[in-house]
């Protein structure tokens, strides 16, 4: 299985951010996206996850093969840690909640309500969700925010285990996660320079902006 992105252009709020972006991500590989704030990392990841349509270009990976982890963890504060994870496992038709909890070092907190967790613990729970989706490609938007050094290393191990199972990961991050095998893609050269030639849809959207 392979993610092939060809000549992709993405926009945010009607403003083109990236263009002529092409890359390939195969099984067992990780790709780290780099770029300054506002360079379009999040927009690119949301486009890949199918949450917004690309301005131009093609994405070859089927939507049901990827899972997306955003800045927000999607946790319900009145549910316990285990209940939150069980919900996402059930939505994806998967099991293995216990394994996911122990992989992210959350087993001791399983019965605690999510609003009693610290920011780093919430983040770990949000990342544990990836393990119960059963998806091939992980699309991660700054997964290490609010994690301490030990948790970053723990998560790097989880990603590495996922890669060794034939999965793939696409990460946008500012820090070094300790994944030496990952390829780094700097987005700066792909910054959109000129106003893109809008098709009919673009012009239609523009009318409302």
């Amino acid at each position: 299985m392979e993610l092939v992105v060809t000549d992709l252009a993405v926009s945010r709020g009607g403003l083109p951010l990236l263009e002529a972006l092409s890359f390939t991500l195969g099984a067992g590989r990780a790709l780290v996206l780099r770029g300054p704030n506002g360079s379009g990392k999040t927009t690119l990841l949301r486009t890949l996850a199918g949450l917004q349509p690309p301005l131009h270009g093609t994405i070859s990976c089927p939507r049901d093969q990827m899972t997306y982890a955003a800045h927000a963890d999607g946790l319900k504060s009145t549910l316990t840690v285990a209940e939150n994870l069980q919900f996402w496992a059930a939505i994806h038709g998967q099991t293995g909640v216990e394994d996911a909890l122990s992989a992210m070092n959350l087993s001791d907190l399983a019965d605690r309500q999510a609003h009693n967790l610290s920011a780093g613990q919430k983040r770990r729970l949000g990342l544990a969700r990836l393990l119960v989706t059963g998806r091939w490609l992980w699309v991660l938007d700054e997964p290490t925010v609010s994690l301490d050094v030990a948790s970053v290393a723990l998560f790097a191990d989880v990603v590495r285990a996922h890669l060794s199972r034939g999965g793939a990961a696409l990460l946008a991050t500012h820090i070094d996660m300790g994944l030496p095998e990952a390829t780094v893609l700097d987005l700066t050269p792909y910054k959109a320079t000129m106003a893109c030639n809008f098709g009919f849809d673009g012009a239609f959207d523009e009318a409302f902006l």
Partner: protein
Amino acid sequence: MIALLIRDLRLAFRAGGGFGLGLGFFLILAVLVPLGVGPDQTTLGLIAPGILWIGALLACLLSLDRLFALDFEDGSLDLLATSPIPLEGVVAIKALAHWLTTCLPLALAAPVLGILLNLPGPAYGALILSLLVGTPALSIIGAFGAALTVGLKRGGLLLSLLVLPLYVPTLVFGAQTVTRAAQGLDLTTPLLLLGGLTAGSVALLPFAAAFALRINLR
């Protein structure tokens, strides 16, 4: 899908989930109207069907802005949109959860409040029946309105303005059903129209709402 329904029901019943909000509002309205209108039993019996239906409608409206807004704020809506469940299913399930936690208790409590408003005897069955048949349309129309306004801060006002005109047919035929029953008339026609409105809304609006959600998630 069942998991989503169970989660939404569980969230509604946990602390701060908002279960009982609509019911409390309905109760307050039904208690205050006799105090405001006066104790004349004929007048109360005359306006009872309309008051009960308006109360149920407003109580239903009260909790709508939370339907998608909470999931949007904590990021679950993004994750649900990328999950195997189609967004149309998410909308339908969330509307069902709203109906179960808000409208169903209203329908069951309405007869008790009917006594406070001196609702005529033959109308009680019609009241429960019309609420059970008509309120699913309120939930799904409300879900459509909530989907349209999901990205907006304080979208509640816009939501009410969008949704209220769409609620009018359901209110008219719902109140008409109860009024006709109170007068001892045949209530087949308004009840069938009420059912038709519900069936039409439930069939069409999940698709419209899912489309609105996709645009708002961009």
